[in-house]
């Protein structure tokens, strides 16, 4: 056993029981196997459990040469007690598109991290990065050289720059994928490395790519630019498989409800009545869909994946502006482009991104997210700056207030008016 010091952590220890994987046990084992950082972290966490307060200082600015992000500086405010974690910076790495790795890759990563860091990680961070949790300032450059040269992997984002894009598993494993979310995620990450590493934005910016409206990467809630697969043609129907569901030969929702007796599958109640647009009906044994009325919510497809499949004329819906509540309140992304082809090299999409970034970099205030700019300057402004066409799909409903802006050019006779002429018709 290595030469390490274990702190007394009675409270943390209570988190060893129960069935869910215990990070305490994991850390303790790793610590006892030679990583003092893990034990010191548990020690400091125990102190936090006692004080009910964090023991990390306000982050300092640290990083690697030439990059404006990728490292989060962190220092303990009780360094004397836990010296091995006095410096405890995190390093963010670009994850792979759908977070597949080889064992060799992981092992190499572990070697690097055991040598240069705490041995603790987050697989993965909320944005999607691989998070290497805790190292010292003097290790940052070596880590950078290690991961680039020896792991073929670059740093992720932090600060006012693009963050590592993320996507769902998409075509690797999912039959619903209308776009190649992994390839798009890869392409955007590569294309925008400069934006990722050298902060030039008013604030952070995130891309997320989901292959279909189920949105398994939470793009609509968590990315400034949400790319979500969809289709324009008809849902593909295999009527015999529909019957197999009706007859109970196939399990509804692919078995997602297997541990409770919900009664016999009822296509009317469980599919047709729940369709939000009520655009489905049975005609004898055939399931019919009025596809023009369908809003592609995925429900019927989710319920009967063997019988129904998205159409084949596919592309993406682009929505903009999602963010957490700071400062103006949380936003979901709002529809900007109802349908755009997403085939490499994605030029049309990238042109669009260029336009919205130009606008934001021109007009965005310091620490103003893209969604806040949209709110402050209006959807009309977005439409103008991104050269979009206003369409009703962009809104939930038309405005109810009458406070419409007009420009002089739109109004017959313009805005030049003559007080005298007015008063000649109307005595004051």
């Amino acid at each position, binding site marked *: 056993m290595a030469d390490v010091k274990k702190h007394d952590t009675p409270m943390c220890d209570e988190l060893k029981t129960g069935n869910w994987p215990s990070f305490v046990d994991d850390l303790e*084992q790793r610590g006892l196997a030679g990583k003092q950082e893990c034990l010191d972290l548990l020690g400091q966490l125990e102190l936090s459990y006692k004080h*009910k307060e964090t023991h990390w200082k306000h982050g300092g600015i640290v990083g690697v040469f030439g990059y404006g992000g990728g490292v989060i500086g962190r220092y303990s405010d009780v360094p004397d007690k836990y010296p091995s974690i006095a410096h405890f910076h995190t390093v963010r790495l670009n994850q792979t598109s759908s977070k597949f790795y080889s064992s*060799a890759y*992981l092992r190499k990563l572990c070697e690097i991290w055991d040598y240069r860091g705490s041995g603790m990680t987050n697989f993965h961070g909320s944005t999607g990065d691989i998070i290497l949790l805790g190292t010292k300032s003097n290790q940052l450059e070596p880590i950078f050289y290690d991961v680039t040269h*020896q792991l073929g992997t670059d740093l992720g984002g932090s600060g006012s720059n693009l963050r590592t894009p993320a996507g769902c598993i998409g075509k*690797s494993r999912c039959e619903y994928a209308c776009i190649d979310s992994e390839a798009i995620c890869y392409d955007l990450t590569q294309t925008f490395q400069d934006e990722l590493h050298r902060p030039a934005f008013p604030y952070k910016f995130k891309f997320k790519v989901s292959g279909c409206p189920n949105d398994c990467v939470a793009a609509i809630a968590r990315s400034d630019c949400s790319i979500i697969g969809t289709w324009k043609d008809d849902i593909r129907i295999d009527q015999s498989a529909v019957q197999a569901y009706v007859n109970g030969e196939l399990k509804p929702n692919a078995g997602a409800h297997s541990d409770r007796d919900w009664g016999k599958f009822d296509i009317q109640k469980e599919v047709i009545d729940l369709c939000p647009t009520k655009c489905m009906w049975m005609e004898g044994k055939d399931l019919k869909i009025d596809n023009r009325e369908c809003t592609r919510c995925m429900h019927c497809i989710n319920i009967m994946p063997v019988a129904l499949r998205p159409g084949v004329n596919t592309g993406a819906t682009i929505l903009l502006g999602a963010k*957490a509540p700071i400062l103006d309140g949380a936003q979901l992304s709002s529809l900007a482009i109802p349908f755009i082809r997403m085939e490499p090299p994605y030029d049309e999409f990238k042109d669009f991104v260029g336009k919205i970034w130009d606008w934001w970099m021109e007009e965005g205030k310091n620490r103003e997210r893209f969604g806040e700019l949209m709110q402050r300057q209006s959807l009309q402004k977005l439409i103008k700056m991104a050269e979009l066409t206003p369409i009703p799909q962009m809104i939930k409903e038309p405005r109810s207030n009458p406070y419409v802006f007009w420009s002089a050019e739109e109004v017959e006779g313009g805005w030049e008016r003559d007080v005298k002429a007015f008063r000649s018709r109307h005595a004051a």
Partner: protein
Amino acid sequence: MNEYFEQQKELYGDNYGFNISEIINKPYDKDLPSKLYDPKKPMQNRMTDIGPPHFFQFLPPVIQRNHGKWKHHEIVQPGVIKYVSETGETCFAVRCGSARLITTDLIREIAEIADKFCDGSVRWTTRNNIEFHVETEGQLRALLDDLNGRKFPGGSSKFPVGGTGASVTNIVHTQGWVHCHTPAIDASGVVKAVMDDLYEYFDSHKLPAQVRIALACCLNMCGAVHCSDIAILGVHRKPPLVEDDRITGVCELPLAVAACPTGAIRPISIDTESGGKKKTVRVNEEKCMFCGNCYTMCPAMPLADGEGDGVAILVGGKISNRISAPKFSKLVIPFIPNEPPRWDSTVKIVRNIVEVYSSSANKYERLGEWAERIGWERFFEKCEIPFTEKSIDDYRLAYDTYHTTTQFKWSIHTDNL
């Protein structure tokens, strides 16, 4: 080679990350940085903007062969999904819970399992679960048995299988007291406590629909709890301290002042002991809503306080576009004290919401859809959650949450009228 991968390669030229095993398979050279890096010539030997390796190389062979060709799937048991391809091939995905905060040793163990059963491939989901892929029923059973046997010394599972279908899957969460400077609560500890308690819903399909739980340790909401079925949110309740002594040294005062969304911070001058003047700020405490944005901008304005900080619970959010549109989570419990190490009250309250929902909602109905269908008055009644004025919006778009109809239900709240 695979056609798809060839096409991808063509698109990106001979990008560094396209032949990843060549790089990876070289042994780790600890001294490489010191050989390559010279602080005086930092650009020398520096490799930048390479991005991540191309994902395709890491896919298991069956997935490489069937990329883009999957036809349908079936969840054969909680945590195990069988995929069928147009080519006729099949693949089983096995999903395991994970603490997310994991050590290199645990990652090595994962690598070992991947080597043993999965041609060395493994992945993580968007909710931080681990997924292994095998091709045959036989491999599947062997893998499951293996996973089942792996426990931590304290008895917890290393790789609990579940999280598919109508279940509670992994809790998306954040750093908490393990790494961040602004948290009002811990993250990992709360998640462990809640998941231990809800474990029966993780490895079964007995809920009306999926229940997605998220945790964020402060209002920055890195866990993106704003659209979760159940959200556990760390909140402060005491206004920031102002450290007059060091504020000018560590903050740009105008930035601190501008940071406050409610305009609660104003700059002032105070007399120093030496008879001079010193600039600092004051907080109009009545206007403070404890968002912490001032502390983000200024280290001399800490909010954290053992008594002041705790948990708020929000419910009813969702992300998918299935049936109903994505929704925000709504604040139903404004405060529960921090109770380390197992956050008993929080755990109890979350379980209660899950159980009341489970017993009352329709099949396929998400928590928020259920609450909206029965009405929020009924939600509070059924869950026995006291309604407080804290649940009433008073921020920017508050008017849109006012109740502008006579349509409401009688409930425990009106029974005495």
